[in-house]
């Protein structure tokens, strides 16, 4: 006689304008089970989970909780049932302290003192470390996630949903998280673990439901599968490794950065301290690091949004650009692709043609004495669309109407087709489907083969290890000594990424940043 599943979804569907996000999805989670919900970006995982947590309602299908059919109308109702959720994007309030943030996550008023005591109890029990008095803005991403976890645990959940929890953690922090989750599961709490990180799911989960295009395509036991086999089920076709091939980097130094220092741009930013590195033509240089360690500040300093103290701090092909703005740097051959697609790399409300004007007007010649040559911009945009296989109606389509992967391909294409001598990109395949990601990687490799110097800033170690020749880690605004990719292990990288937060428990003779 088997126990009723903790959570059971039967034929749940949800439609949004233009897309069927979930198509008759069925899912079953046993008590105390760690269940993976696997799928690419856009497969429908987030939507499904929002329905379990009461943020959205299913258009059809049923949800059973411990054998009883339920209608979860609101997150509060979900919490009352015993469903806790740790979101991928934290619901935190920067200007308030940890205690206030946790209080806001609760459903009733609790006195500060009582809450403080309860929090310390939970942290003790699960080995989570936090100071309740600290202001959120001063915490690292890993620490912020701990707040979300404590918030969820205070409600004694019977089902804990974790949405892409490890994308912002160092390898050591991931281990700590897994320990906490295993502890919870052993006490009877079910865990629904959403991720696209195959090796983690193999390590942690007992059961997996795989979504593709809104439908369930497989359920399996990850302990009996490999990362590759699950990956193929997730994508539905063979994964193709981009060809890096034999690379010899004998070219001249094209990008030189000497002791680049920049103060914090605002209260919540990170100061850059004496960053130095050089990149030769034909080389792909990687900068690894957990989000929030200065990556955005570094990209903005390199592309010219923030000027350096001295003109010679940054040099492109030997020419100093430190005091030039983005337009000046582009003229000398330095192009960039920031992390945030919509709002930074591109303007969502503008057409693709106008977005071409944004960065390519000077190098591609459609700017003349202050006037814009629209036909030139249209032509260039159409070229990018064709060459980079961007799925869209044409150069007049609005950037905001493109899917994440397609917009990223367009933005990459726009910069690469300007034939820059130096290209700096940040998180090039974040939130992008596997097909587009592979395309982008190949495009970067091809650009390097033509002699350009490329800098890739990324949180995805797999990506960096696959693409780069040399690697360095950014931590708290400082850059570690660059090392050839073959010479360094994931473990070492993890320690460098952890720096002074969170890695202390594993710091046995650790390698320090140079």
């Amino acid at each position: 006689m088997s126990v009723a599943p903790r959570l059971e979804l039967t034929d749940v569907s949800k439609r949004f304008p233009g897309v069927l996000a979930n198509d008759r999805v069925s899912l079953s989670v046993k008590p105390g089970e760690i269940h993976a919900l696997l799928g690419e970006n856009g497969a429908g995982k987030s939507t499904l989970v929002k329905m379990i947590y009461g943020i959205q309602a299913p258009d059809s299908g049923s949800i059973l909780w411990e054998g009883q059919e339920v209608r979860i109308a609101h997150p509060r109702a979900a919490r009352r049932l015993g469903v806790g959720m740790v979101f991928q994007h934290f619901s935190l309030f920067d200007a308030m302290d940890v205690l206030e943030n946790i209080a806001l996550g609760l459903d009733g008023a609790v006195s500060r003192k009582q809450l403080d005591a309860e929090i310390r109890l939970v942290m003790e029990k699960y080995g989570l470390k936090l100071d309740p008095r600290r202001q959120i803005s001063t915490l690292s991403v890993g620490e912020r996630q701990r707040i979300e976890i404590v918030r969820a645990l205070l409600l004694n959940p019977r089902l804990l949903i974790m949405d892409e929890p490890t994308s912002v953690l160092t390898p050591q922090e991931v281990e700590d998280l897994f320990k906490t989750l295993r502890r919870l599961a052993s006490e009877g709490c079910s865990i629904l673990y959403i991720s696209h990180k195959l090796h983690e799911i193999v390590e942690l989960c007992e059961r997996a439901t795989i979504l593709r295009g809104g439908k369930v395509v497989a359920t399996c036991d990850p302990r009996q599968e490999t990362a590759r086999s699950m990956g193929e089920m997730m994508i539905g076709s063979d994964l193709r490794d981009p060809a890096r091939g034999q690379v010899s980097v004998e070219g001249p130094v094209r990008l030189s950065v000497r002791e680049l220092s920049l103060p914090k741009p605002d209260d919540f930013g990170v100061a850059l301290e004496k960053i130095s590195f050089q990149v030769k033509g034909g080389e792909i240089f990687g900068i690894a690091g957990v989000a929030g360690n200065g990556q955005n500040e570094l990209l903005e300093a390199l592309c010219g949004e923030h000027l350096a103290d001295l003109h010679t701090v940054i040099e492109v092909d030997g020419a100093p650009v430190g005091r030039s703005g983005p337009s000046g740097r582009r003229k000398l051959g330095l192009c960039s692709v920031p992390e945030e697609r919509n709002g930074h790399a591109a303007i969502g409300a503008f057409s693709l043609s106008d977005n071409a004007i944004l960065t390519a007007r000077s190098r591609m010649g459609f700017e003349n004495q202050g006037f814009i040559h629209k036909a030139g911009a249209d032509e260039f945009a159409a070229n990018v669309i064709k060459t980079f296989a961007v799925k869209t109606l044409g150069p007049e389509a609005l950037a905001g109407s493109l899917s994440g992967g397609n917009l990223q391909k367009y933005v990459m294409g726009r910069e690469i087709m300007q034939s820059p001598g130096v290209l700096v990109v940040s998180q090039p395949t974040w939130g992008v489907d596997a097909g587009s990601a592979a395309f982008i990687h190949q495009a970067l490799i091809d650009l390097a083969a033509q002699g350009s110097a490329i800098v890739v800033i990324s949180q995805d170690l797999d990506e960096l290890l696959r693409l780069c020749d040399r690697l360095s880690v950014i931590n708290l605004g400082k850059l570690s000594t660059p090392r050839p990719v073959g010479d360094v292990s994931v473990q070492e990288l993890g320690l460098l990424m952890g720096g002074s937060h969170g890695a202390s428990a594993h710091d046995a003779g650790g390698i320090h940043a140079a």
Partner: protein
Amino acid sequence: MTLTFIIDALVTVIGITTPILLAASGELVVEKSGVINLGVEGMMLVGTIAGFAVTFETGNPWLGILVATLAGATAATIFAVLVLSLGANQVATGLALTIFGIGLSSLIGSNYVGIAIDPVESPFPDALANDSFWRLIFGHSPFVYFAIVLVLAIGWFINKTRAGLVLRAVGENDLSAHSIGYPVIAIRYAAVAFGGAIAGIAGADFSMVISPLWAEQMTAGRGWIALALVVFAGWRAGRLLAGAYFFGVLMALELYAKASGHAIFPSQFWAAMPYLIAVIVLALISSRDGKDGKAPACLGKPFIPNG
């Protein structure tokens, strides 16, 4: 510098500070929720005419104040519907509200030009209210006492209650508050309506106490000073109280200069002073990089939930 003169001066300062103190307190709550309502001047004027007209027609000042409050809240709700439910631009809509308030009060007020009503008197007994010394404390209209109590109550509410914490959360990060499950739009509606109600009372203070003779645009731009006041109080109630009285002193100086005739500078200089000082203080405050005194992070931004 006789005692009588000093007391007169203080009484004047307290009296003219009250409307901007009221309007600013209401707007403080609104802005803490993340919305900026530039229509304060318009809402005040709506309260001005409502209070005046109802008091004149019915002879009951309390009814007048009540209607003024409701009128202000209603005007604010129009703003709220446009901005919160229809997604209109906050700056433009606030301005529209001001122009509307000016137009509406002029239209209705055209029937009352030149008419006067009895100013609302102190709630305290005659002996105290009219005593040459004690009137400093007891001689003010109910608006004055209400304003001071209100500011302190708002300060306590925002910082010490759970509801205030939720209000602050909505203004800091509306998306997070929404994810957790708080009704962001409903909370903002309530805050905006509250701000409007208080602005209505502030307006009524003009036509029922300060100058109980109807004229067009009685508020003369005080609503804008109230907005500036919220900014340089750093969105904190205590500083709001102090800042308001500082302004009261400036405005009193203008009256004194006009009345006494000998004022070093022409009267127009003194009339311009409050506005110039407001700008100077804004500049000084904004360039000081303080941790406290930061605007609610969502101020002025529309709330666009994504699922």
